[in-house]
């Protein structure tokens, strides 16, 4: 795997971890919960290499 791809996957992991953390911490706004889940989808698909 080229070096740039490793960086991209690390960025994906970081963003996903932040989103999960925010999703878990969110207690009030359903809109924000929905946003976090939607943004997580492409990152999860990419990390698990789901085609």
């Amino acid at each position: 795997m080229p070096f740039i791809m490793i960086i991209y996957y690390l960025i994906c992991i970081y963003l996903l971890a932040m989103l999960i953390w925010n999703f878990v911490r969110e207690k009030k706004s359903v809109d924000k919960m929905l946003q976090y889940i939607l943004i997580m989808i492409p990152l999860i698909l990419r990390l698990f290499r789901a085609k």
Partner: protein
Amino acid sequence: MSRHLIYKLVLIIIIGGITLIGGLQLYQHRHFQTPMIAGPGVTKVKKLSDYEPGLKGTMADTNVFFLKGSKPGGKMLVIAGTHSNEPAALLSSLIFLENSTVEKGTLIIIPQFNNSGGRNTRSGDGYPLYFEISTPWGQKKFRMGNRVASPLDQWPDPDVYVHYPDRQLLSYLDIRNTNRTWPGRPNGALMEKVTYAAMELIRKENVDLAIDVHGAETMFPVTNCIVAPEKSLRIATMTSLTLKATEGFDNHVEPSPQGFRGLSHREIGDFSDALPFLLEAPIPFLDQPTGPKTEDLLLKGKDPFLLKLSKKGKLFVPYDETGWPMSKRVGQHCSAILEIAQQFSRRNPKRTIEIKNTPLYSEVIKNGVGFYYKDPSKAHKKNVFYN
């Protein structure tokens, strides 16, 4: 269980379900196989990876069909599916593949050049995933693809695509566009490997004519035309004039711009001895100011908004209530390809390319496109190629 936890679980289940249903449809589309029947003229079938091993085992690899005549002559390569959302190219190439025989020379056909693009879609534009062509034996189903390769096969995109070898700066998306990555390179991105493999094919097989078949918007000036660089202009001009005189349709000539890099009609000519041509037939489906992007619009080319624009003189092709049906576009491609071969053969008798049993424009319009497709269930298994 607290209320916010219930909300979260419900949201995960709903979004997960929607993602799964949508994803399943895209998965089925990506893996849908179109049967192609090698007709009586096919003498050999190779893979594009035979010319660039880096493609082996990837979604970018594709079939290359050879129709070799009994007598020696020149070689013509027909590339279809460079842009998989311009399906008249694929449909025309299949007419050649399933019906044509070659007397002199060799015809090489790549029906699905950007194979990854053919397994991609443009969900933002609401593209249909499939379209069907009526044949005497039933409906033949095809994948509707996209202009560029799937990001599942080539990722990530750069911020700016730097073309090789000219270093011209192009749109980031064009690194997945096989009409911007010519002449390609073996150690580049996947689509650069695809075009490099085609360049290797052209050089190793001593191809004389390379025809890249496309479709273009009715509101785009480079439509209904043959794009040709300086060295192909004479044949392109004679083809255009002959088609107008004998077949009665317009197909003007557009010079290939020297300063715009990565296009087949520019780079094939500059990096090989072949004469390149790019055929454009109008495809109203690709125009922006249309109604919904339906299968009907794709096949019939009828749209009320384009009709209004036509009356105001905003289109670059004649357009009326009859639209611009698929049979017209496919017929134009068939006649233009045959005429280019004839014009070349007249000037190069030792490199003659003589193709038989291919319908002309008027015949395709009269009989329809599906008339020329064979029933895969009745064909010999060894002649049916799924891709």
